[in-house]
């Protein structure tokens, strides 16, 4: 599904922050991306999400060479990827329902065609009672679940999550992990960027470890 070949990344004229990355992410797979702070996890996520271009190497996403994609082509490809940010990035002036439905609205779908589906998903992540709530009044865990719901509503083939348990207590962290596992069972490939060792120990999955810009894969 996604293939990195000799990928390197540097910002401006600085040193390479990612070096010789060679790995693949298969459909329906589950992996953790970990490493110390500053190791380049967020940069790698941005490469995976097409919001950065590598300074060298080849990235193939869904059989497309990422380097040759137009801006609209990248936008179209992003619809096959869901992303959960550490800071959620919910739109404060829109309700939980509208935030979660946003990817479908962007696709130009009629609200009547997705209303039931969004409500069902919100119920599934435990936000059925928060449909009309605006993000500023949601708790951290509720925001996290709303962000996850928004990332999966358009049924992406790959879900990227950046430190999804960084802002929640361990109990809720385990609940969120379980949610990701269930999503994986429905056919979505999952990549969770985290430095929470306890969380990774909860589930036996492939680990991608970044250290000093290089990636080590532990199957």
């Amino acid at each position, binding site marked *: 599904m996604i293939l990195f070949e000799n990928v390197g990344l540097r910002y401006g004229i600085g040193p390479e922050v990612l070096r010789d990355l060679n790995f693949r992410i298969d459909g329906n797979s589950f992996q953790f991306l970990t490493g110390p702070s500053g190791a380049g996890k967020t940069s790698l996520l941005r490469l995976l*999400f097409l*919001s*950065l271009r590598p300074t060298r190497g080849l990235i193939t996403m869904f059989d497309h060479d990422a380097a040759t994609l137009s*801006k*609209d082509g990248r*936008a*179209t490809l*992003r*619809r096959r990827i869901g*992303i959960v940010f550490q800071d959620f*990035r919910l*739109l404060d*002036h*829109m*309700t939980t*329902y*509208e935030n979660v439905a*946003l*990817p479908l*609205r*962007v*696709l130009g779908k009629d*609200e009547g065609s997705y*209303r039931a*589906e*969004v*409500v*069902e*998903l919100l*119920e*599934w*992540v*435990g*936000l*059925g*009672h928060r*449909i*009309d709530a605006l993000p500023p009044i949601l708790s951290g*865990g509720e925001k996290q*679940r709303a962000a996850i719901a*928004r990332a*999966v*509503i*358009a*049924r992406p083939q790959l879900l990227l999550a950046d430190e999804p348990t960084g802002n929640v207590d361990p*109990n*809720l962290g*385990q*609940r969120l992990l*379980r*949610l990701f596992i*269930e999503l994986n069972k*429905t056919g979505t490939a999952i990549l969770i960027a985290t430095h929470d060792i306890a969380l990774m120990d909860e589930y036996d999955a492939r680990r991608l470890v970044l250290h000093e810009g290089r990636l080590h894969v532990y199957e």
Partner: protein
Amino acid sequence: MSTSEPLDGTENLAEPWDELEARPLRSPGPQVATAIVPRSSISGRSLTAVVAIMTFLAALTAGAVMMVVSAASDWRSDVSREVTIQVRPVSGRDLEADVRKAADITRAVSGVADVRVYTKEESARLVEPWLGNGLALDELPIPRMIVVKLWNGAPPDFAALRQTLAAQVPSASLDDHRRWIDRMRTMAGTAVAGGVAILLMVLLVTILSVTFATRGAMATNRPIVEVLHYVGATDGFVARQFQRHFLKLGFKGGLIGGIVAIVLFGVLQAMNSWLAGTAGGDEAEALFGTFSIGFSGYMAILGQIVLMAVVTALASRQTVRSTLKTID
């Protein structure tokens, strides 16, 4: 997504949202979808005011130009329906006979509707403001006037008439007012060119104002633009979210400015009617016509309202698109 079994009821972990699940589900959100780009994030009032003022100025310019063109056209058609023949007293010639002969020659020309010879008394009245009354015209070499009215649409052959008069009445000269008509045409043309220049400047100022306002709105809403990109929105989709607001703002501003201009022209027209017959009213009417911009003038103002809305929307769309190129 298949969500037949909620995730919340699994295993022995405490479920922070379990108890909430039992509550009845509320129907989702407002029926009218919230604008993705909030209206409050765009400095709408100042931009609406700018567009309203610009539309008012554009409408005022267009109305003024139309009045000048219409007045010049009236003057031109009045003047071009009439020519004058001047017969100068020349020693050794009979002025009265020359006048009669010139009038007879003119009457015979096709295209002439009426020939009126000014009498001695009428000629005296013409020079009365400068020379006073009680003049003995016989003692002064005052030329005599012949006013020739023409039929509409069939002007006589002035060159042939001028030639005939020169041959048979050498003291007569024909003035077809061509010089005045040309001057008025030039004046009207200058007024139109000036009006078009002002309209272009008004459009330019509007475009610049909208561009600055759009850039401000883009900077304020950058986090929203980024989220839209993350969920797969194309630049066209993002641009439409801004364009929608600016089209409304432009239309609102245009409507305000246009309506104020229409009211102003209506008031001027009404004042013109009230003042009709007074010295000032007659002077104003002689200069500017009836102060009426007519049906076509009001249509032009309505067109400007639409033009302003479209220009505002297109300028914002262009600005959004060029700004989006810098955001990846």
